[in-house]
């Protein structure tokens, strides 16, 4: 479980996160949604500790990462898996070496055990026959999937995904969502996902935090999100013609 309390973050006097509090539960897929530029990435990076926050607290199962010494922080980080918005694969390493990197670095697994784990992770994200290609030689969607494989390589306790399915086709996108939901439940991971994909919201939104201009605007789950009266949220959720149609149909259903 990750708890954030009254988080503040600004860049050169411009406040990007204003007083955000929430609880992200274990074994559930927690989504952060919001418009482009609303502060989702900044929130995620603040939680993992890539950005210094100006105010507030972040508790990883009760452990405050700001009170930790260097060593404790390092250990905490080994429990974290993160998928960056653009993958952030290591350019100089092949697909296989990328996924193996955390294992090489932190485990004493034998070559064979690593290979088994590697195949398992790549299998899970549907990457085949690309083990020896470099990140520049695979497609954007593949890069994202390799990044997911790398993030789950060490069975993380906390998984952070910054728009894991942006740039993926609908089919792969659903596969990735299903994968994340599955491993989250299976290994009891605390998962936080940034997204503005409404499919993901419907499919895997166990707990949804909607932020707008750095403020927490709404919180709930995927069944509540379509019945909310929150104006900003409605404008966000029902922006596309597709979802407008969906709302009309739903209203007709409700009227009957």
């Amino acid at each position, binding site marked *: 479980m990750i708890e954030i309390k009254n988080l503040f973050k600004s860049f050169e006097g411009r406040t990007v996160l204003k007083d955000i509090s929430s609880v992200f539960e274990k074994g559930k897929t927690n989504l952060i949604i919001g418009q482009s530029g609303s502060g989702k990435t900044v929130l995620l990076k603040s939680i993992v500790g890539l950005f210094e926050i100006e105010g507030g607290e972040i508790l990883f199962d009760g452990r405050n990462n700001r009170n930790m010494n260097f060593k404790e922080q390092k250990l905490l980080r080994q429990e974290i898996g993160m998928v960056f918005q653009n993958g952030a694969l*290591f350019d100089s390493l092949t697909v296989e070496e990328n996924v193996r990197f955390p294992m*090489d670095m932190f485990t004493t697994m034998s070559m064979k055990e690593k290979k088994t784990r590697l195949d398992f992770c790549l299998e899970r994200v549907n990457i085949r026959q690309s083990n020896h290609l470099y990140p520049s030689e695979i497609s954007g969607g593949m890069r994202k999937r390799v990044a997911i494989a790398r993030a789950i390589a060490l069975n993380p306790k906390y998984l952070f995904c910054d728009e894991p399915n942006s740039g993926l086709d609908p089919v792969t996108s659903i596969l990735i969502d299903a994968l994340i939901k599955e491993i989250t439940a299976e290994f009891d991971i605390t998962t936080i996902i940034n997204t503005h994909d409404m499919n993901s919201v419907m499919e895997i939104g166990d707990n949804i935090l909607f932020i707008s201009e750095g403020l927490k605007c709404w919180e709930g789950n995927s069944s509540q999100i379509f019945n909310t009266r929150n104006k900003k949220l409605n404008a966000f959720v029902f922006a596309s013609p597709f979802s407008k149609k969906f709302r009309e149909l739903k209203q007709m259903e409700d009227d009957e």
Partner: protein
Amino acid sequence: MNVFYHIGQYFLLLVRVFKKPEKNSIYIRQLVLEIEKLGINSIGIVAVISVFMGGIITLQLTYNMVNPLMPTYIIGLGNRDTLILEFSSTVLSLMLAGKVGSNIASELGSMRITEQIDSMEIMGVNSASYLILPKIIAVVFISPFLFIISVFCGLVGGLITGPLSGVVTIATYVTGITTLFVPFYVSFSIIKTLAFGFLIASVPAYMGYFVQGGALEVGRASTRAVVNTSILILFFDLVLTQLLFK
């Protein structure tokens, strides 16, 4: 103000670089890769430049220094000492600052802007140490070898152009390069190349590691790295010469 800020940041980075590595085996693998990339791959250009410079220094000495009152072996001797004292140590380091330094700064800079460094940090890896330490050790380790290769090639360059000019014979040239040899010059220069090697790796690493922005800034950082490293090399050349020759 700004200068002190950078000096402070630079030393703080070095503290992180020299922390105990996570896993020695991986560092050794990285070190071998860096020695190949930064060192072995520089041998060719070092050799070519040194042959030409040795040849040019020899010609200059031949046409400007030699007169009937001076023994002609002074040509070989002059070439040797110029190579050892300044060319193969300082000038070569300036050149490596351009080649190796810009390579290091742009590599780290692009890793920074594409969040590869962040993703390493998130895994719990000490990215500064993992990325920079092998580079520093590799460059410092390879520098004396490059120095020796350069002196050797420079002498060969002189051996080619000297006799061709018709003023000095091969035998006199060889006498020149073996006369009045001062071993201290060599140790002095090797100390210099070690210090310069450290600068060539660490200053561009600092510039690249802290890049903010996009591809444009990476380019700028790489240029700045070369300029600053070169100035520092010359400054330390001055300091070391003053210290070691007193």
